[in-house]
Structure formats: C-alpha cells, structure tokens
C-alpha cells in the first residue's frame, strides 16, 4: 500500500464512523430522509460560504453550510406547521428549492472558480490526500482526516453527553417532554450534527453518498440487535467495513471510491437482510417452517390422546388412518410421525401409534390452552 492509499482508507473510515453515529438516531426516529434533504440543501450554504472565504476548507464555510442545514429543518417544519402539506412532501419541496438556489448561484457567479456541482454531489476521495494540513512547516497529514476526525469526536461527545436524553426522546417523545428534556432542543441538536457531518463529508464522498453512510449501516444494525448501544457500535463497525472494502473494490474496478463504498453498504445490508439471526428473511422462513411442523406434531399428539384407551384406538391411532382423519397426505403424515418419534412424543409399532409420557403432556397442555 502506498501512503496515499493508507490516507484515503483512513479518511474513508473516519467519514463512515462519523456518519454512522447520528445515523442510528435518524433511522430510529424515522427521519432518514432528513439526511437526504440536508445533504442536498447545504449546497447554497457551501456556495455562499465559499464566496465569503474563497476557501473550501474554511471553518466559516462549514458553519455557513451547517446553518443552511438547520434552516432546511426549520423550513420543513414551518411548512408542516401550516398543516397544508405532509412531512414527506414538505421535505421533497424544500430541499430541491434550496438546491436549485445553490446551482443557480454557482452558474451565475462561480463560473471561473474551482467549485462545481459535480464535486459537491459526488465528491472525490482520491484527491483528499493531496490537501495536507501543515502547521509551522510540519506536515501533519491530510486536512480532511483532521476535519472529519474532529466532526466524529464532536458527534461521539454529543451522543455520550446526551445519551439518556436522546434515548428517551427517540423511543418516547412524550415521556421526554414530561421529564423536561426539551425534545425540540434535542431534535435541533441532532439535526445540527447531521448538517455539520454532511458538510464536512461532502468533499470526500459527496452529498448523495453521505446518505448511504448515514442510513445504511444503522438500518442493517437495526436488524441485528434490539439494544441502542449495540446498534450504534454495530453501525460504526459496518460503516468501517464498507469504507475499507469499498476502497479496494474501487481500486480493482478503477471506479469512484465513494460510489463503491455506498455499493458495499448495500451489499452489507443485503447480507444482513437475508441472514440476520432474528429479523432476517431466512430466519423468518425457518421460523414459519418450524411452526408448521410443531403444529402438526401437536395436532398428532392431540389426536392420539383423544382416542387413547378407547375401543376404537386400534383403528384410529394408525399411521394410515391419519390421512383420512386429519386430512394429511400420506407422505406428510409419515414425516410428521417420524419427527414426533425423534422428538420422543410418540412410539410406533407396526403402524400403530402410542403416546409417550411427554407426548401426553404436550397434548393435555395444548388442549388446556385452547
């Protein structure tokens, strides 16, 4: 690995981790699309900040753009407060309008400066290592590594300090208000974090792929755990994995690094969606299949129990009779009997079936339950 490659991976990893932190709360609070809106709507803020400072890395630019992000949230809520427009429609109107303002500002006034909408939308991680942070003649490393690292620390600090408040406000906004936690303040605090993160990340990964890093890992983590702390940790880990694997995919395809990172987020989500132990698709299929067999075994036990010790038991409690009585196809009946035998519920002899102690318990229990 060349030093540049190491730098790029470091930056990608820090961006992914910084995005996953507030992202977990966005996913849980059903505000995922707010990240999309903010990351687009900061464009005019970036442009105005750039006009003021003439420097894409100026802290003032980050402040101006983050303020535009918070303005977006405010405008969406203002539009919603008229009750004439639903939340999703409000989001979908506000951010394209702000984005349009940004595009027009660039087209009219920034024709000959180094700022184009492609760069804002798509980012270019490959160039990030060339912009170094030099303090008193010493090269400390790529500048965006420090900017993103700072934002990541800020996010981690905010979440650590207000963990309890965020948690209560996320899962029970009413309780949070009753406890005096000011849900509105927490909401705007979180939105400020999202804005700052989106601004800091845009020149590395672009404003559309910030959304992938903010929403994808937390959404996958949401399928893996029911605990908030674990969800945050898992999403950071998934984000890091997507960043590193995305870099190498891009390296081998000679394609966009940010795009490949987003693609890897998608792959991660797909794998989790299929294989998650409790909430995954395969787990669901297995659970349904098991339920089918368990139900059939229970039904068999009840059937045998009903006819036990009665004169007709010798004719009723036979494998070949199940077909007629329970309307089971012969091969299905045989498989149920075999499973029930394996589970120690019944004993079979020459096609005649008899309940074991456990089978009898199961049957009585099932009858009592219904």
């Amino acid at each position: 690995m060349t030093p540049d490659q190491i730098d790029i991976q470091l930056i990608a990893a820090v961006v992914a981790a910084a995005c996953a932190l507030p992202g977990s709360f966005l996913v849980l609070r059903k505000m995922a699309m707010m990240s999309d809106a903010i990351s687009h709507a900061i464009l005019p803020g970036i442009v105005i900040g750039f006009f003021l400072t003439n420097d894409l890395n100026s802290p003032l630019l980050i402040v101006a753009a983050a303020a535009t992000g918070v303005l977006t949230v405010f405008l969406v809520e203002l539009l919603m407060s008229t009750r004439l427009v639903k939340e999703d429609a409000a989001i979908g109107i506000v951010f394209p309008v702000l984005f349009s303002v940004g595009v027009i500002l660039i087209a009219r006034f920034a024709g000959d400066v180094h700022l184009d909408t492609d760069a804002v939308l798509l980012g270019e991680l490959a160039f990030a290592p060339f912009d170094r942070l030099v303090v008193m003649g010493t090269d400390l490393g790529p500048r965006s590594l420090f900017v993103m690292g700072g934002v990541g620390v800020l996010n981690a600090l905010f979440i650590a300090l207000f963990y309890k408040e965020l948690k209560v406000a996320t899962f029970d906004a009413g309780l949070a208000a009753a406890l005096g936690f000011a849900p509105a303040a927490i909401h705007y605090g979180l939105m400020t974090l999202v804005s700052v993160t989106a601004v800091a990340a845009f020149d590395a990964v672009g404003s559309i792929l910030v959304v992938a890093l903010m929403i994808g890992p937390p959404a996958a983590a949401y399928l893996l755990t029911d605990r908030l702390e674990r969800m945050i940790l898992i999403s950071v880990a998934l984000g890091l994995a997507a960043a590193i694997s995305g870099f190498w995919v891009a390296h081998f395809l000679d394609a966009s690094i940010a795009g490949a990172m987003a693609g890897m987020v998608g792959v991660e989500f797909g794998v989790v969606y299929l294989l998650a132990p409790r909430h995954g698709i395969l787990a669901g299929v297995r659970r349904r299949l098991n339920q089918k067999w368990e139900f059939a075994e229970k039904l068999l036990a009840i059937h045998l129990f009903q006819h036990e010790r009665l004169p007709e038991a010798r004719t009723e409690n036979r494998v070949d009779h199940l077909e007629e009585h329970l309307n089971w196809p012969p091969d299905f009946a045989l498989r149920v009997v075999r499973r029930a035998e394996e589970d120690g519920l019944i004993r079979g002899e020459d096609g005649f079936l008899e309940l074991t102690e456990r089978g009898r318990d199961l049957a009585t229990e099932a009858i009592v339950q219904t």
Partner: protein
Amino acid sequence: MELIRQLFTDYTLQMVAMGSATLGIVSGGLGTYAVLRGQSLLGDAISHAALPGIAVAFLLTGSKAPLVLMAGAAAAGWLATLLIMSVTETTRIKYDSMLGLMLSVFFGVGLVLLTFIQHRSGAGQAGLDTFLFGQAAALVERDVVTMAVLGGGALVLMALFWKELKVLSFDPEFGRTMGMHMRAVDILLTTLLVVAIVIGLQTVGVVLMSAMIIAPAAAGRQWTDGLGKMVALSAAFGAAAGVSGALISSTTAGLPTGPTIVLCMGVIVIVSIFFAPNRGLVWARVRARRSAGRFHREAVLMDLHELGMQHGDPFHPHEAGALEVMSVRKGSAVKILERLREAGFVRQLDATRWALTSSGVEKARALKEKRT
C-alpha cells in the same frame, strides 16, 4: 412581447418549453397520487436509483439513444421500488430508511459503473452531467416527441384505470374487499410514476426530479378536494412552471433551466399555500377573524339579555362597561354594540347605555336555545 415572439420563432426555445411543459403535465398529474398516498419521496428514490440502469443499458447496448437509456433507467427505478416495498413489508425496517438506503446505494452503484465506463473508454463526463442536472437546453424534437408519447401513454393508462387508482389512493382496504387486485394496481401506479420520472431526468436531472413530482401536487391540493380537479390543476401547475422556467432561463444568462423550473414551482407552492380559497393561510386568517367577530357579537347579545333577565325585563338597558367585565375584551364593547345596532339587534339610549330591540331579544333567545 419579445419573449412571446421568440417563443414562436426560436426553435431551441420552443423545444425546451414544450419538453418542460410535457414533463410538467405528466409529473404533475401522476405526482398527485404519490403525494396523496404519502409516498412523496418515492419519486426522489426512483430518480436517484435510475442511474445504474442508465449505465447498465449503455454497457449492454453501447448505445446512447435516449430510449435505450430510458428503458434502463426505468428498469432500475422499478427494481428499487420493488425492493423498498418488499423489505418494508417483510422486516421492521421503516419506509423512510429504505428510501434513503436504496436511493443512495443505487446511486453509488451507478456512479461506480459510470466511472468504470469513463475510465475504460476514456470518454468525457458529458453523459453523466446530463442525467445529474438535466440539460433542457439540449432537447431536440425527437426527445420531445419521445417524452410526449411515453408521458401521454402513462396519462392514458391513468385515465383508463381511474377508478382503481382512486380506490388505491384513498381506501385500498375497501378495494380489496371489492375484489380488486390492489397489489397489481400499486405496481401499475409505480410503473406510471417511473415513466414520469424517467422522461424528466434528461430535462431537470436526478436531484430536482422529486420537486417536479411533489410540488405541483402539493400546490394543487390546496385549491380543491376533488381528485379529478386536483390531477388537472397539478398538471396545469407543472406545465406553467415548466414553460415559465424555460422562458426565464432562456432570457437570462447563467440561469440553468432545471433549477429555474424548480424555483418557479416553489413560487406556485407558496402562492397556493397563502392564497388558495378555503385552505389557504390568508383565507384561514380571514375566516378566523370573522368567526371571532361573530362569536363576540353573540356573546354581547346574550350577556345583555342575561343582565336584563336579572331585572325581570329583557329590554332593560345597561352600561357598555358592564358588558366588558363579562365576555369581551376591555374597550371593545362599544364597537361590538355598534355592529349589533347596524344589524338592528340593539339600540343606544344615551351616551353609555344600550338595550336590546325586540329582534335582539328574539335572537338572544334563539342563541341560548341552540347552545343548551
């Protein structure tokens, strides 16, 4: 005037205006359903998700013909929607998370494919830009015809399945009990929406397409409660924004068409929110003031009657000041009494005292009856 003359003579301007108008009509009309169903942002997801489809279509065919790229875009947008639907139905992942995830992941994959194509063939970024921001100025007659045919087809299908789409938007449960295949209708609507978006990508681009779907319908919603009227109005608003945006951007240097159309759309939304009759904010304010005025007049009338009855005579006169300590704000009683006098419900005896007239007594009794 110059502008209108240009509209009839300038070929480029004609094409841009007609293309934008077509797009506005189709996306406005079909966007109505997305907004009514609370799926406004689905359009945003579909337009972003179209990118890999465009790249794959180019990789497979090697052609840059609009129809080929549109087919690829439609397929990818459609696939993303299907994934969004099925994941939200089968897991606890919420709809908004799925929208954000799919739009960014598909877009990312699209970006990988496009950069892969560019680096391999050494081609410039021209093709990519067109779809990110749209290039309305580059529309030629063939593009406009393609848009009109596809969009017109989508609108015809919408008209043919009017009843089904209406049921889907307002009460899908009811449709199911009537034996309609709501799932199929849902897929039909998604397909129509995909068509509307795909024909717009060339004109306004990926990011701004969502506004073309949502904004006309959000504006149209303020003016009417009828679905038919709303579809027609939204289409008209979309067309108006398209044409005016195209005209404004063509006459001013440095105003790209797509963003200008979106800003025009924003103006229409704001005007609708403020001035639409019934729902508009201005009207709501006027209505609130009117009903507050009526409420105060009725309160004073009933107070005067109540005070009179304490003297055993409903016509007994009272000081305006006495009424102010009852239901209305200090200093407002005289003004209210004057309004009541104009209506013939009270009369003024001297500088400070007022009494009910016989029609005033009748009115006060009727009000009392109604409120108890």
